[in-house]
């Protein structure tokens, strides 16, 4: 657990956690950092376990490791097993590895199964002040709890399994201050998409980012997770938010979180994690959210984003030659033309899901838009809850009926169409309003065209068959 030294220079949240986890320091400054928590899924782990076997090594701390299947699982009925032989083998391989190496494992039928970055927090496996890694770039999500969390590759997965440590060099630090009050109808997704649009898709490369400011403090844990989730989308190694009462209230009573007196002691410790007032950062950026408008991406990376009230930009308007060429390529791929109004763009598919936006609050917000209305007849719309737990809770609240009655499909939990490793993919040329995190070429299916939006904006696009400004809709309350 982290603790603040009473003396010494002021420290930022990142420095406190980093310094508290240094096992050894190399002459060049590279540190061997202790890893408290390791999440494992089926796609990036088979070769790591194979490496352990070939070298005759064991998992050093199985109890600090949690495995779950999420990327390959179908979101339709799974009781008959997985039809795709490669997906099935990958899932079976994780099951076998977890069993052989003594790791806790949630299989595709487990009531706790879900997207790795949804279930970690949900189970209280994600705690403030800890170091958390996973062979998945969206591990940055867990930084919402004041944890140092980042994605790693398979070689590092193997390294953590074998040693419970990682080599880390101290990156630069950035304070991203989100100032002002978020206007009504705006979401955490709009905040982070707007910020990426402002700082650029590589604006965070080489940095660990701390999100702070009034707009962040006002966010729920689920909203904070949406923000931190997309840290990697502007290149940051990790994104983090200092824990506060919102954080502690979320964690109390969770399966893997401390309980009773231990929880009280932990909270006291966690309070000391917040950055000291005089802490220094290599860079300080302020993003004002008071004038923010719902965001829609138009291109093939998350930095290619405009307000829904805007239009597709003219590539010639970009100063940088690389940006101009990238914008031209993106428009060709997306089949859009400069000057086209965002609200005139029609969609074929809507995907509400992913580790960015498939938690209960996301589904409630989308359901509030959908209630009593019908999905446009030309649109195929999908809701994929982030976890079986989220799905159950939504059903208890009657949200499944709201979606089903409107014409959405109501699926089982998994990564699904965020990256289409399971059968949920776009056909070539299909255009999708998606609550996921990446609009890369082919991400949701070869030739598929992705527009990133908030759950509310995705729900509205499903109803209207095109992008509409969610602030202009009349909302009806959800009836259970």
């Amino acid at each position: 657990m982290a603790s603040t030294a009473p003396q010494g220079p002021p420290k930022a949240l990142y420095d406190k956690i980093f310094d508290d986890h240094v096992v050894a320091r190399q002459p060049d400054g590279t540190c061997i950092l202790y890893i408290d928590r390791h999440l494992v899924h089926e796609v990036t782990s088979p070769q790591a376990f194979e490496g352990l076997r070939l070298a005759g090594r064991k998992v050093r701390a199985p109890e600090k490791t949690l495995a779950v299947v999420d990327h390959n699982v179908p979101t339709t009925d799974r009781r008959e097993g997985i039809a795709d032989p490669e997906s099935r083998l990958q899932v079976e391989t994780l099951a076998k590895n977890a069993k052989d190496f003594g790791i806790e494992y949630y299989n595709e039928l487990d009531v706790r199964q879900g997207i790795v970055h949804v279930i970690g927090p949900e189970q209280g496996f994600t705690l403030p002040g800890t170091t958390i890694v996973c062979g998945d770039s969206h591990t940055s999500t867990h930084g919402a709890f004041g944890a140092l969390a980042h994605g790693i590759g398979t070689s590092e997965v193997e390294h953590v399994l074998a040693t419970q440590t990682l080599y880390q060099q101290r990156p630069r630090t950035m304070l991203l201050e989100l100032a002002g009050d978020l206007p009504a109808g705006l979401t955490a997704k709009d905040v982070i998409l707007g910020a990426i649009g402002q700082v650029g898709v590589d604006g965070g490369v080489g940095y660990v980012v701390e999100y702070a400011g009034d707009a962040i403090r006002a966010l729920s844990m689920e909203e904070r997770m949406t923000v931190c989730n997309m840290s990697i989308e502007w290149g940051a190694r990790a994104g983090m938010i200092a824990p506060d009462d919102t954080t502690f209230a979320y964690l109390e009573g969770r399966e893997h979180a401390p309980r009773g007196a231990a929880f009280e002691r932990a909270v006291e410790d966690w309070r000391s994690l917040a950055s000291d007032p005089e802490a220094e950062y290599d860079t300080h950026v302020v993003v004002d959210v008071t004038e923010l408008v719902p965001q829609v991406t138009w291109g093939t990376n998350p930095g290619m984003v405009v307000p829904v009230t805007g239009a597709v930009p003219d590539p010639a308007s970009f100063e940088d030659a690389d940006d101009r060429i990238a914008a031209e390529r993106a428009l060709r791929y997306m089949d859009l033309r400069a000057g086209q109004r965002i609200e005139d763009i029609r969609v074929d598919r809507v995907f509400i899901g992913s580790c960015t936006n498939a938690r209960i609050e996301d589904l409630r917000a989308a359901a509030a838009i959908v209630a009593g209305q019908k999905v446009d007849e030309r649109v195929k719309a999908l809701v994929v809850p982030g976890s079986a737990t989220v799905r159950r809770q939504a059903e208890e609240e009657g949200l499944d009926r709201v979606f089903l009655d409107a014409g959405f499909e109501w699926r089982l939990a998994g990564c699904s169409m965020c990256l289409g490793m399971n059968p949920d993919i776009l056909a070539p040329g299909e255009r999708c309003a998606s609550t996921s995190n990446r609009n890369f070429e082919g991400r949701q299916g070869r030739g598929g065209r992705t527009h990133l939006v908030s759950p509310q904006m995705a729900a509205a696009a499903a109803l209207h068959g095109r992008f509409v400004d969610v602030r202009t809709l009349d909302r009806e309350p959800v009836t259970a």
Partner: protein
Amino acid sequence: MKPLREVTGTVAVLDRPDVDTDQIIPKQFLKRIERTGYGQFLFFDWRLDENGDERPGFELNRQEFRSASILLAGRNFGCGSSREHAAWALQDYGFDAIIAPSFGDIFRTNAGKIGMLAIALPADEVERLMESVDLDSGSEMRVDLERRVIVAPDGREVAFDFDETTRHRILHGLDEIALTLQHEDAIAAYETAHGLA
């Protein structure tokens, strides 16, 4: 991992910014449980059309770049997903060194772990190197990890930074886990001191 002291070979140029790992290797090839054989899937959707035929407009399909072992790339190369398959695919295809103004953080780390050199140089320097490549007949370059210099096609030497821990490990082809396990006492002491043992 085999030791790597220098890379000498022909150079390919992929002058596009923000090349993400979804392009380097699309998701349908991540379902395999093996570590080898990913080169055939490199830039699959950019390299090949729907019928599996080569797209003539894609840079790496140029005859002069076919046997390249050094790749000059745009800024933020390898951004996005953590899939190490991207680094495996590049290496299996034949690349031993990638030079770009900046890299996706996880990609750069992954490259270092498998002994592929991801070298960041100032953007104008990368541009100069790209300009020095003869696109008609191809050009050779040398990347000397020992001396941390690149010898450009015109013979000019360009120094680069490379983190010392990774450099040492690649130069000698060392197993990183074995190196870390030499710190077992320190790891155990850390766990005891933090009540984690």
